[in-house]
C-alpha cells in the first residue's frame, strides 16, 4: 500500500472565504452564527439562527462554467482553487487521468431545487424550466462542476452521506491513492444553507430553537444548556497526494492519513448508536495500526443535539477514557453538514501545526451525560502527533479518519 499525505487545503466557511479566516476566526473565539432575517415567514420553523457563508467573486468563474453551478458549487470551485494553489499544483497537470476529484454533499443546491419546484409545480408546467437547473440540483453537482471547470479526467465521484459526506470523500480518496489507482485526489465536501435545510432538521426537533434572540450562544456542543444544531454552509477541500510524489516535488505536507473507516449503524435513521460508533473508531484505529493511547486529539462531531452529543461522549469514553483532549468546532461556524468533516479536519490540521487545541465554543457547563471525557474548554497548548476526526450522519452512517503529523 502507498502512503497518502495532505499537501494542500482550501476553505470557504461562515468565518470567511479562505483557510486563514477559518483558523483565525476559531483562534479568536468568533461565532459566525446569526439571526436569519426573513426566516420567520416560514410557518412552523422554530430555529431562526444559522451560520451563512458569503458568496463573493463568483463572476471570476467564466459564465459557461458558472451557469451549471448553484451556490454550493461556487464554494467548491473556490475552495478547490485555493487547495491547488496551496499545494502548488498547476492546472496543466489536472487532465492526466491519474488525478481525481471526490466531493460530497447531502444533496444538490437547495436554492436551485426550491426554484425548480417553485417554477414547475404551481401550474405543472415544465416549459419554464431552464436547462441549467438539473445540473445545479443533482447530488454530484459540486464534484461534477469542479471536475468540468478544472478539466479533471481521473476519478470523479460524489459521496452523499449527509454529515459524513466529506469525511467519506476524503476516506475514498485515501483508499484510491493508497491502492495506487490515483496519484492525487481533490477531496472534500460542500453544502448550502437554505431555510428548507434547517427545516428538515427542525421538524425532527434536532435544531437549536431557544437562542433566536442570542444567536452567538448556540450551538453548545456537550453543554448542559445545549438545545440542538445550527446549520452552516461552505466547502472544505484537501489535496490528497501519494507520499513519494509529494516528497519528490518538495511539497509541503499538513499530515499523513494513516487510518480510516466508515460503517452503518444498522439501527436507527436518526438516533446515534454507541456500539456502532465504538466499532467505527476501533476499526479506524486498527487500520492505522495504532492504539487509542496514541491519539493526541479528537475533533468530535459534536453537533449539540441532546442525544447525539451524549452518545458520542459515551463512545469516546469507552474507547479513550478521559485521557485524550476532545473538542467540537460547531460552536464557531455551525454544522456545515456535508462540508463539516473537511472544514473541521482542515482546522484540526492547523491545530496540529500550531501545537494548540482550540476549545469547544459555548461549552460552559459539561452536561452530566457528556462527562467522563477530556473536554477542552479553553485553548490548550499541546503537541498533536496523531489526531482523529469523527463524523456521524443521519441515516446511521459513521466515519472516522486518523492523521499523523509528518516531521519536516
Amino acid at each position, binding site marked *: 500500500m502507498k502512503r497518502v499525505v495532505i499537501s494542500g487545503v482550501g476553505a470557504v466557511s461562515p468565518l470567511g472565504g479562505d483557510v486563514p479566516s477559518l483558523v483565525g476566526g476559531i483562534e479568536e473565539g468568533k461565532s459566525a452564527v446569526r439571526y436569519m432575517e426573513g426566516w420567520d415567514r416560514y410557518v412552523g420553523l422554530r430555529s431562526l439562527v444559522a451560520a451563512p457563508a458569503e458568496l463573493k467573486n463568483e463572476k471570476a468563474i467564466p*459564465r*459557461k462554467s458558472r*451557469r451549471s453551478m448553484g451556490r454550493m458549487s461556487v464554494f467548491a470551485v473556490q475552495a478547490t482553487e485555493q487547495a491547488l494553489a496551496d499545494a502548488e499544483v498547476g492546472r496543466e497537470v489536472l487532465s492526466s487521468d491519474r488525478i481525481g476529484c471526490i466531493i460530497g454533499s447531502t444533496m444538490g443546491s437547495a436554492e436551485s431545487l426550491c426554484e425548480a419546484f417553485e417554477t414547475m409545480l404551481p401550474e405543472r408546467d415544465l*416549459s*419554464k*424550466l*431552464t*436547462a*441549467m437547473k438539473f445540473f445545479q440540483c443533482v447530488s454530484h453537482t459540486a464534484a461534477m462542476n469542479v471536475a468540468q471547470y478544472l478539466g479533471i479526467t481521473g476519478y470523479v465521484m460524489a459521496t452523499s452521506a449527509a454529515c459524513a459526506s466529506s469525511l467519506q470523500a476524503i476516506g475514498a480518496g485515501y483508499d484510491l491513492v493508497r491502492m495506487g489507482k490515483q496519484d492525487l485526489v481533490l477531496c472534500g465536501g460542500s453544502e448550502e444553507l437554505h431555510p428548507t435545510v434547517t427545516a428538515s432538521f427542525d421538524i425532527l426537533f434536532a435544531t437549536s430553537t431557544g437562542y433566536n434572540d442570542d444567536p452567538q450562544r448556540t450551538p453548545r456542543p456537550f453543554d448542559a444548556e445545549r438545545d440542538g444544531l445550527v446549520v452552516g454552509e461552505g466547502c472544505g477541500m484537501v489535496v490528497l497526494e501519494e507520499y513519494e510524489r509529494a516528497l519528490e516535488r518538495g511539497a509541503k505536507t499538513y499530515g499523513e492519513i494513516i487510518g480510516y473507516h466508515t460503517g452503518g449503524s444498522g439501527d436507527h435513521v436518526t438516533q446515534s448508536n454507541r456500539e456502532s460508533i465504538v466499532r467505527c473508531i476501533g476499526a479506524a484505529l486498527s487500520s492505522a495500526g495504532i492504539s487509542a493511547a496514541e491519539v493526541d486529539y479528537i475533533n468530535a462531531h459534536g453537533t449539540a443535539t441532546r442525544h447525539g452529543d451524549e452518545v458520542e461522549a459515551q463512545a469516546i469514553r469507552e474507547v479513550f477514557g478521559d485521557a485524550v483532549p476532545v473538542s467540537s468546532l460547531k460552536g464557531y461556524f455551525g454544522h456545515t453538514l456535508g462540508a463539516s468533516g473537511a472544514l473541521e479536519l482542515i482546522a484540526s490540521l492547523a491545530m496540529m501545526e500550531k501545537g494548540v487545541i482550540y476549545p469547544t465554543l459555548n461549552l460552559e457547563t459539561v452536561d452530566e451525560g457528556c462527562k467522563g471525557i477530556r473536554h477542552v474548554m479553553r485553548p490548550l497548548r499541546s503537541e498533536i502527533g496523531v489526531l482523529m476526526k469523527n463524523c456521524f450522519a443521519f441515516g446511521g452512517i459513521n466515519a472516522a479518519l486518523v492523521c499523523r503529523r509528518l516531521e519536516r
Partner: protein
Amino acid sequence: MQRRLAEQEVVATINEVLEDYFEIEREKLLPEMNIFEDLELDSLDIVDLVVAMQEKFGVRIRDDERIRSIRTLGDIYQFVLALQEEGFSGRP
C-alpha cells in the same frame, strides 16, 4: 404577446436578455453576429434563451421548429417579429 411591440422594442428586449442572462457585451449585439460562433452560445444556452423569451414576450415557442434554423442574432429578432405578425395576442 401582451401587446404589439415596435421592432426596436423587440430588439432591445432580446439584447437585454443576452446582456443580462448570457453576459454578452453590448458591442457584440449586432444582427449579423452568429449566435454560436460569435456570441459563443451552445445548445444548452438555446434552451435557456427560449425560456427567457417565453417569459419576456409571453409566448410558447419551445416546440417551434423554426428555432432550429436560427443562426444569427438577426434571425432571433425576425423570429420574434414573425411570431408577432402571426398574432400571438395573449399569453398562451
